[in-house]
């Protein structure tokens, strides 16, 4: 690990992207992610990269589509309403099998909502968002250090599986400042023989497209893509388990909710309550096996979310009928450790 610096979560994403070899950033300002774009505006010219504030989120994601076709590492970022605008472009990038990184520093919704943190874009991130059969690899950082590390991982996985990856953060992690070590993170770039870089007469030209005139070929492409998604599920599912060995109640939480939940677990353990935490680091692929294994010994799951309850559906699908309840705050509010402790105790008593 290199020297530590004090960074905002949004800045850590930006600097990690640069360290990962990203030299193209297209975005449009929106709170609470604007520092990311502002940082890129300052830094990209110094590393020979391109920062462009597009005229809209729609323009930005289509610029990402264009650069991704050339095989260069490219990123855009926004917050919830802006990410909604990007969905058509994301679907095209997925349909053209291109790697790119999209950052969503979530805020309260729906609609214009508010500028406080939220996790209510879980469905949008994990269940499509745009049209058609596709997935994004969705990574959920819970610290400023993870903002950096998972950004680099997002670029690596996007390249490896030729698919877009999303960093699903929230306004708290985006805005908070923590010491971070950013220079020891090693990216893993890959060869991209499919990239549109000019043939110079050496080979037939590559085509980047998501249009297939023959429906049978389009079906074949979808089936091939989903075979790749199965490999992602097998190889890239990530979760952290905390105090789960003998847990009676498993809290499931990601991002900022997981940080609060970890404090709640520590407090509950001090009181002798056997609580544990499963923290999905990828929410697509969702850590179904970790949930299924825990379901063999826990009495109940408690999904802690900054939403009206979205991830809870994935937990229920994996929990095999084990009781699963929700503990939430919405609209930009964050659950307190006390609220979580109370909810766990209520489940313990049943």
């Amino acid at each position, binding site marked *: 690990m290199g020297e530590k*610096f004090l960074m*905002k979560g949004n800045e850590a994403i930006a*600097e990690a992207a640069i360290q990962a070899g990203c030299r193209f950033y297209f975005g449009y300002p929106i709170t609470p992610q604007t520092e990311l774009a502002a940082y890129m505006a300052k830094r990209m010219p110094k590393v020979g990269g391109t920062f462009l504030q597009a005229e809209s989120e729609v323009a930005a994601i289509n610029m990402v589509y264009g650069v991704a076709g050339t095989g260069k590492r490219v990123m855009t970022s926004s917050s919830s309403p802006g990410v909604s605008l990007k969905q058509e472009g994301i679907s095209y990038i997925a349909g053209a099998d291109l790697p790119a990184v999209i950052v969503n520093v979530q805020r309260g919704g729906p609609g214009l909502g508010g500028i406080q943190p939220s996790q209510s874009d879980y469905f949008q991130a994990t269940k499509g968002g745009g049209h058609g059969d596709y997935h994004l690899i969705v990574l959920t950082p819970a610290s400023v250090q993870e903002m950096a590390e998972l950004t680099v991982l997002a670029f690596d996985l996007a390249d490896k599986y030729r698919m877009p990856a999303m960093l699903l953060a929230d306004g708290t992690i985006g*805005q*908070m*400042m923590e010491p971070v070590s950013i220079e020891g993170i090693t990216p893993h770039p890959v060869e991209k023989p499919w990239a549109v870089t000019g043939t110079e007469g050496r080979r037939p030209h590559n085509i980047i497209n998501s249009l297939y005139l023959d429906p049978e070929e389009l079906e074949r492409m979808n089936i091939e893509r989903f075979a790749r998604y199965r490999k992602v599920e097998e190889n890239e599912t990530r979760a952290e388990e905390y105090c789960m060995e003998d847990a009676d109640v498993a809290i499931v939480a990601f991002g900022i909710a997981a940080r609060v939940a970890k404090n709640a677990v520590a407090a509950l353990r001090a009181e002798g309550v056997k609580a544990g935490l499963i923290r999905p680091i990828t929410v697509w692929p969702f850590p179904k096996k970790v949930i299924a294994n825990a379901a063999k010994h826990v009495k109940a799951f408690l999904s802690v979310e900054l939403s009206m309850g979205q991830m809870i559906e994935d937990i229920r699908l994996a929990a095999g009928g084990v009781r699963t309840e929700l503990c939430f705050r919405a609209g930009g509010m964050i659950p307190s450790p006390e609220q979580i402790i109370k909810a766990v105790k209520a489940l313990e008593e049943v």
Partner: protein
Amino acid sequence: MKRLSLFCGHFGSGKTNVAIHFAERMAAQGLPVTIADLDIVNPYFRTKDSEDALAAKGIEVVTLPFANTNVDLPALPKFVYTLFTDRSRQAVLDIGGDDRGALVLGRFVPFIKEEGSFELYYVVNFYRYLTRTPDEALQVLREIEAACGLPFTAVINNSNLGRETTVQTVLDTEKKAADLCVLTGLPLAGTAIREDLAEQVRKSGLCGTVIPLTLQKGV
């Protein structure tokens, strides 16, 4: 003591914490003090976070009604001109980060220059990634001066790693701060440190004034 104390610096360098400390110190000396939140860049981590604590110390807070709400409006408080017209009070001005944040000062520069009683402090944290060296810190300083149209008058070293800050963390930046002062020709107004570490830093033989900070409410 100059009547106007202005705090500028790189985004996230700790201007608000330092500005609040200066306002509290003036109030403790029995001076009438107003602190103004002129940050039009960041809608979070505002002077308003400490409004009640400041009011309890008799410090008047000029801030936006929208601060800490869901309205992200880059506007200025309506009483902002009283900072310049009411010369009976000390005024502490907490400005937004970088050149973007300092732009806000432009319209007030004629008032500030006419009165001629101001300190413009450059708050620097050498653990921030874009001000890691004296040269980088100097570049940000010059960008801010160009944006606001006022020259800095002093440097405040607020180098820290948040909760991981130790005495050594601060001491390791002493030379960088001194070098920045040589590069700019500005005096070092002090080295800021979390108050529980201040005594140890004082005893360490660090040059200049130690500024003990009470950290404001954060995440």
